[in-house]
């Protein structure tokens, strides 16, 4: 198995899919000549040329919408947004077009496209550049939402997303682009909608995704060592379709759940999961489900303030101890 950075794993997925299928192309700001704002697409222009690796003007509304049209026409666009914050100027195209075209046309047209880019806070980027936006996409039927920053998962899930017949919102992490992990040498696809257990445990389940998984694993170590609490870490990887069965199975075994979500708490993914689990598994629960999320605040710039706002290992430990009464 090769050790790949997240950015390399994503690139490998795109390169393999582009070699396999001429309909796949990559379009976005700085993806070609500049090799990608975060070097995810490094070298791809050289291999595939200007026809398939395409730099755009700063017109997200235009080129995300163009991607929707190209997908309807039978191509397989990968549209890179420099960060998900900037996708908001194209939100109408994603919500009112991409998510609805299959339904509005009663299945006559489909939108097989991937929109991908980094999501969530990096460091000290302030209010407009630090948002984790899964909930405002997962809200909509017609979209699929992947959020991961583990190299092997990013590789296998991006390949599936590119082949998927529906619009897939694919969320990565700026801070994790350089993080290395083992990626299988053989071509591997991971189906959308399957959670994975990152660490076995019996006292409670920590549910998370994307880079907060790293915080959960760190917290689980401390919980074991210092408090004798055995925490399962369940990585959702895909937010929509949600692997409800994995959540219900986890609660049936551990009877306690803490959901760790980067992003605003109000009407967030953690709230949705919490509602579903308590509706389906009320009798299996030994404690209320707790959420660890961003504070209900826009992101401040200063390091000390920023650290208070996003979920921390300490806050995860605190919530885990609370549901376990220890």
């Amino acid at each position, binding site marked *: 198995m090769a050790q790949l950075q997240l950015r390399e794993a994503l690139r490998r997925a795109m390169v393999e899919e582009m070699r396999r299928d001429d309909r796949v192309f990559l379009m976005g700001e700085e993806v070609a000549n500049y090799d990608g704002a975060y070097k995810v697409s490094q070298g791809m222009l050289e291999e595939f040329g200007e026809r398939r690796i395409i730099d755009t003007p700063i017109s997200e509304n235009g080129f995300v919408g163009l991607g929707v*049209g190209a997908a309807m026409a039978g191509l397989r666009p990968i549209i890179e947004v420099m960060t998900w914050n900037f996708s908001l100027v194209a939100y109408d195209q994603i919500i009112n077009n991409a998510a609805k075209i299959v339904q*509005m*046309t009663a299945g006559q047209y489909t939108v097989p496209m991937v929109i991908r880019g980094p999501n969530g806070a990096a460091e000290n980027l302030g209010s407009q550049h630090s948002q984790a936006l899964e909930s405002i996409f997962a809200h909509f039927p017609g979209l699929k939402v992947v959020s991961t920053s583990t190299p092997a998962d990013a590789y296998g899930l991006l390949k599936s997303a590119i082949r998927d017949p529906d619009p897939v919102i694919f969320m990565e992490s700026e801070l994790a682009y350089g993080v290395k992990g083992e990626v299988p040498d053989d071509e591997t696809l991971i189906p959308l909608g399957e959670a994975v257990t990152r660490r076995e445990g019996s006292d409670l389940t920590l549910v998370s995704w994307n880079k907060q998984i790293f915080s959960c694993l760190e917290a689980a170590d401390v919980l074991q060592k210092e408090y004798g609490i055995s925490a399962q870490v369940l990585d959702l990887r895909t937010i929509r379709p949600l692997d409800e069965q994995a959540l219900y199975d986890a609660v049936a075994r551990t009877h306690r759940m803490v959901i760790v979500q980067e992003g605003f708490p109000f009407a967030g993914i953690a709230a949705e999961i919490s509602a579903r689990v308590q509706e389906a598994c009320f009798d299996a629960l030994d404690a209320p489900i707790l959420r660890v999320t961003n504070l209900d605040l826009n992101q401040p710039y200063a390091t000390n303030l920023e650290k208070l706002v996003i979920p921390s290992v300490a806050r995860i430990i605190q919530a885990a101890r609370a549901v376990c009464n220890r």
Partner: protein
Amino acid sequence: MSEGETSYEPSRDELLEWYRQMALIRRFEELAAKAYTQRKILGFCHLYIGQEAVAVGASAALEPTDVVVSAYREHGHILARGTSPRAVMAELFGKGTGITQGVGGSMHLADRERNFWGGYGIVGGHLTLATGAAFAARYRQDEQVSLVYFGDGAAQQGAFFESLLLAQLWKLPVVFLCENNYYAMGTSIERYSALQDMSLRGDGVGMKRWQFQGFDVAEVYDNVKRAVDYARSGEGPVILEAVTYRYRGHSMSDPAKYRKKGELDDVKKKDALELVRDRLAAMGVDQDTLDQVKAEVNEIAQDAYDFAESSPDPDPARLYDYTYAPDAGDDDNVEA
């Protein structure tokens, strides 16, 4: 001669066919209005009466393989593309036999068989799709052109401007066809735009553009044909403005009290249907033939109405069928 002028002389048969299509659209819309007042058609219903020459002339300039995208005032556009009036009327009635099985409704008519990509309800939001279709055509190096209809109001939107600039940057084969009917809902054009010829927006990105009168169907055909040929030849996109007018309110719920006195009567003097009839008469087509065409289309429209009325409601068992692609799963249908 300026770009917008034309000396095109249609043949008698050509013109008769265009007259037939225009008369059908008008009668169809009149029946839709009737059904709406009887609450058989619900929601928003935007009629095309007055603008028929644009849809018919533009459609005649296209190949069946070309892509057409429209907004919500699209009954005439889809009919001119050849979609069955029954399937369109049934859709307005919200029936299972409708062109989108009662799911889309008046604002979201789509017919894949005729490359009619649909009606869209977010003003300006659909121009990107035609741009994407043109991108795909260029990517695959096929001959397809896309044509997108939009209103004067839509030419104030960001998605419109971004579509123009991307299409021009990459010289994509798309024709942007603005139907300037001088109103965006109740707001008249001089109250919301400093410029009143929306084709001028093309100048900002260096796009070929011109304006023409949209009442004479032959004139529309000739202007759109030249634009389509230009786009198909690989020269790049074109933005056109057809000057036109809608006789009815913005939608069925709008009594259109904002018009200037006498404005509607003035426009009706150059009514598109009367123009064709006059031209045909001048070509020696007798009154009987014209009346016969009218009787035929009246029958077709009435048949559509009856069909819609007697059709079953959509099947609730199919409610969940259209959220994701019908053939979900891995796609190994690789054409690389």
